[in-house]
């Protein structure tokens, strides 16, 4: 699962009561529009080329008096906390840099919430101008013709060429670009540098799981608040990191439209983890692995590069970062993470043009560098790495270098993980081994049977995208 993709819930009224208290589970759909809310057939046919669509208006937006009279655009941002403050800073700079456009941002907390709210917004036909979905999670909206192609805005100054190249294909489908990289990331291995030093271990951290298993006994000798330190805290939604592990073990979750989870490497990897966690007692399944890490209960954990700025501020120890661990060799492939910016197809071309201006602004090297500094997301614009902001940051905090160096190993995740349902099932299989120590082979066999029908459902979309 992607870095900040939390499945925290917004409460929904799920069950309607019937008569004398008999529950009627009605999904809270009463507010939905009719069964067929589709645009006309002609409109649907033109959707891939049409940039706007009538009937879809802009969601409410508050415009401060000093920005009145401009073209207003609204971004529903899946960020909160430190990252949202950083985003607001970028938007303020944009608004102050010119006098034609006012860009407003509204926090939707996280990707899951944005997903739900944008879905509801499409039904209501009152939408934001910009959305930001992780990896391939925008495909569903592309298939519903909800996103506008960005290619027409590309010129010499701004195009996909300005971004790190292994992050741009994820924004394309059927030969068109619908997403430009923005808050992009990779997963990192975070470790407690102080505890490593205390255990007499190298401050560079481990490079492979085998190496870390050798280090773990030394870490377990340290007591934290009266309990032996744990070497690693796993979580219930570790699929994103699992993607790197299955690659490291020589496998894949899927190959194009074929599910390949049961071909050996996944069971082997989970079997190795089973021994690491349950037989050797080096790791454990935590309620929140990264919180345990930052509070010093665990010596190491996985997390996105996007957590680096926040963790550096909150942790009361020296944080170390390393590439995700390989099986036998260092530097395994890692999945790309984080999200990019898309323009929503609504009723105004003028607003879409304004969105493109904002995207151009955010793609300036200095802006990208500042975003990287403030959040920990990658400086996704290639030229940002040459700015003094990034150079000074790397001097001051070498942890920021790790993520940049790991980019060469980053690649798009396996096709089946482009969709939430399969990711959820992979998480369940992993959690049953990590948490309960269940037999990896049987869990993988079950997973395969669950993923196959899901792949059948998504194969068409994958083929469409791959057919670009």
């Amino acid at each position, binding site marked *: 699962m992607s870095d900040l993709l939390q499945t925290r819930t917004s409460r929904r009224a799920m069950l309607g009561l019937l008569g004398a208290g008999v529950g*009627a589970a009605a999904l809270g759909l009463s507010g939905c529009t009719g069964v067929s809310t589709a645009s006309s057939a002609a409109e*649907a046919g033109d959707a891939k080329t049409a940039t706007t669509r009538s009937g879809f208006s802009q969601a409410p937006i508050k415009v401060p008096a000093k920005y009145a009279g401009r073209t207003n655009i609204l971004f529903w941002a899946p960020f909160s906390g430190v990252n949202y403050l950083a985003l607001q800073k970028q938007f303020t700079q944009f608004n102050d840099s010119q006098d034609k456009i006012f860009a407003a941002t509204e926090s939707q907390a996280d990707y899951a919430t944005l997903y739900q709210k944008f879905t509801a917004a499409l039904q209501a036909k009152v939408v934001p101008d910009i959305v930001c979905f992780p990896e391939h999670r925008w495909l569903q909206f592309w298939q519903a013709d909800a996103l506008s192609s960005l290619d027409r805005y590309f010129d010499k100054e701004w195009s996909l060429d300005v971004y790190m190249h292994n992050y741009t294909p994820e924004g394309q489908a059927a030969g068109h670009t619908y997403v430009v990289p923005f808050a992009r990331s990779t997963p990192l291995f975070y470790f407690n540098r102080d505890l490593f030093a205390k255990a007499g271990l190298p401050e560079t951290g481990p490079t492979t799981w085998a190496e870390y298993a050798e280090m773990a006994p030394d870490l377990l000798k340290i007591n934290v608040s009266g309990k032996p330190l744990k070497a690693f805290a796993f979580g219930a939604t570790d699929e994103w990191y699992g993607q790197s592990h299955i690659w490291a073990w020589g496998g894949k979750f899927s190959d194009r439209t074929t599910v390949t989870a049961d071909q050996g490497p996944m069971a082997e990897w989970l079997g190795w983890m089973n021994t690491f966690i349950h037989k050797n007692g080096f790791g454990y399944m935590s309620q929140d692995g990264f919180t345990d890490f930052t509070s010093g209960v665990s010596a190491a954990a996985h997390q996105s590069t996007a957590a680096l700025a926040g963790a550096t501020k909150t942790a009361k120890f020296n944080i170390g970062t390393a590439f995700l661990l390989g099986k036998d060799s260092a530097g395994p492939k890692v999945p790309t993470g984080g999200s990019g910016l898309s323009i929503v197809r609504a009723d105004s071309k003028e607003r879409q043009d304004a969105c493109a201006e904002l995207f151009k602004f955010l793609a300036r090297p200095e802006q990208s560098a500042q975003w990287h500094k403030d959040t920990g997301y990658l400086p996704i614009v290639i030229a940002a790495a040459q700015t003094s902001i990034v150079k000074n940051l790397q001097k001051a905090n070498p942890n920021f270098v790790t993520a940049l160096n790991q980019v060469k190993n980053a690649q798009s995740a396996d096709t089946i993980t482009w969709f939430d349902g399969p990711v959820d099932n992979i998480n369940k299989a992993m959690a049953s081994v990590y948490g*309960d120590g269940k037999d990896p082979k049987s869990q993988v066999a079950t997973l395969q049977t669950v993923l196959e029908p899901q792949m059948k459902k998504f194969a068409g979309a994958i083929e469409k995208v791959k057919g670009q």
Partner: protein
Amino acid sequence: MFSILILPNLAMILTFSYWPTLYNAFFSLTDWDFVQPSPIWVGLKNYVDLFQDSEFYLVLRNTAVFTFFTVIVTIIGGLAIAMLLAQRTKISGLARTMTFAPHMIPGAVVGILWMFMFDPQYGLSRWAFALFGQSSPQWTATSKWSLWAIIIAYSWQRLGFVAIIYYCAILDLPAEVFEAARMDGARGWRLFRHMTYPLLHPVTYFLLITGIIASAQAFDIIATLTEGGPGVSSATLTWMVYQKAFIDFDIGSAAAQSMVLFVILMIVTVIQVRVGSKKVDE
């Protein structure tokens, strides 16, 4: 005149209760992700898939276990607390307030509260088990304990409500009947067994029905505490509906599960009404 007076309420019930139910029944026969312009008709496929899914039966079992234990624990515990509250002392008022307080806390807050208490690293659970030289279970991170974690948290929240309802009912019991029983020598357990408990049957019946329905609908505590996991170890049918609908965006499957939940609750309620009305009449 009567028809005109009930018309507004009838319209509201039809619009907000019956129409969504029918609409949901329709969705259960379609394949839709909330985003595509219109649902695709698939007939009974969602139901066939559902009943062939082994996970669904695990979730059904979880729902039954969760409902059984939360209802039993809250009714027995609530009655016991109510009996204690009925013994008037100087701190009765404070005790009543403290008993009812958990029920006033939103479920999401209860979930977060218990998430901290269950934390085996720095929660109350660690301290409590350490008193006996034991390590705290991984309450929310292992299948062995996760269902019990939500049962405990949910029961804690509902206990106060049940206790207060019982307490009010006990205060309303006819004093002269108890006086007569005492004159006949009834005391303690016998008085409770043969007088108090039978007289509380209508209230028990009410709490049983509302308890089962509320348990089957429990959502916020599960969402904040375990999110139905690990795996589906603490997922109830209501959680599964949410997950299918708003995480997987598989509206057809979610609607089919909702209809199954609806039928189950309907059957349970009909049985309870029939059995309950007999009991109350007795």
